[in-house]
């Protein structure tokens, strides 16, 4: 049998005691996300032409667009942050932020509130809509 007093982990364990811990006190101390990290989808309502391409291509069906009422909504809890909607958006209304979403607590779903649901209302339909309808189909 091997020598029971030869414990090769000892130097490592002792070195760890004197060096800085690898973990951090998470909610108090948050790591800055990396440049290219996929965090959450950000939407710019002013440039959207409601072509619905993002909603159709979303693998998770997280995006709902209503062209008539000019609303754009995303369920962040369904979103898988695959970046497809950002890639297909012709108007560059969508962007992927590298900041991850904050975790939800039970308090977020009180009073009938849907956690992770975000909705935007555009301005009243104008000529741009008709143009978008023509090209979007």
């Amino acid at each position: 049998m091997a020598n029971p007093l030869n414990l090769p982990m000892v130097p490592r364990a002792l070195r760890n005691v004197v060096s800085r811990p690898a973990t951090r006190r998470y909610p108090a101390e948050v790591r800055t996300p990396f440049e290219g990290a996929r965090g959450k989808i950000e939407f710019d309502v002013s440039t959207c032409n409601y072509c619905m391409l993002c909603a159709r291509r979303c693998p998770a069906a997280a995006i709902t667009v209503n062209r008539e009422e000019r609303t754009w909504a995303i369920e962040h809890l369904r979103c898988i942050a695959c970046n497809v909607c950002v890639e297909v958006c012709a108007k560059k209304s969508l962007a992927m932020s590298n900041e991850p979403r904050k975790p939800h607590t039970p308090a977020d779903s009180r009073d009938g509130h849907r956690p992770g649901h975000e909705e935007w209302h555009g301005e009243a339909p104008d000529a741009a809509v008709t143009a978008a309808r023509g090209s979007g189909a």
Partner: protein
Amino acid sequence: MTLAFYALLFVIVAPVFGGLLAGADRIVTARMQSRVGPPLLQPFYDVGKLFQKQSRLLNPIQEPLLLGHVVMMAATGAMMVSGTDLILVTFVFALASLLLVLAAGSAYSPYSFAGAERELIVLLASEPFFILMMAAICKVTDASTFGAVLASPTWVAFQLPGILIAFLMVATIKLRKSPFDISTSHHAHQELVSGLTSDMSGRLLAYVELAHWYESALLCGFAVLLFNWSIPLGIGAFLVAYAAEVLVDNVTSRAKWQLVLRSTWVATLLFAGGNVLALFVVGR
């Protein structure tokens, strides 16, 4: 009257000491694993929370058994510091440990049952040593109570170096440290889930924790017996030994029960038994 005061003092101070020790243990363990670790008072928060939680009582016998475990553990220490015969203290200590085995064995979970069987094995591994240690201490000091051993002019540790070595090994079992944490461990990440304590929840688990704090304090008392020139020295020696246990816990994997039994018995026989034998030969 003073003896009763010491007993009361142990019952009150021991859990505080044991809890703080557990808290410090968790911080040092975390640092050895290069984690930040919990606050020092975390064990107290944990036990406090366990008392608030709903307890699933599996059968009517488990709670009395566990309560008995805590009370007996506290009583062992109280008896020790209030001048009961040390051999008797050892037997009460064994009985206290046995109540935990019974409580675990009364549960329905096979994990808990297998854990109870393993706890019996580790009791089998550790008890002969404690009896031998107490007998040796009584022999070299010619005293039979805690106070008398402390008052004795003989320096126990110098007479019993072999017992000291074996004590370190057996304390690993009692403190539930790797490599000897086969019946239950602090991490609940073993083949028996949490072994002995798998079926305990809420305040039942809190009793086990509390008893473990008493047990740590009791082991500290044993260390004081071995370093009988002064109480602070004994406590200091125990803290050093505890730090060594934490280190060993962090640099070894969990042994199988066969190895636990074999190595502790070999250590008891070789170091403790050899020590006692040498005393008789030299003393003649």
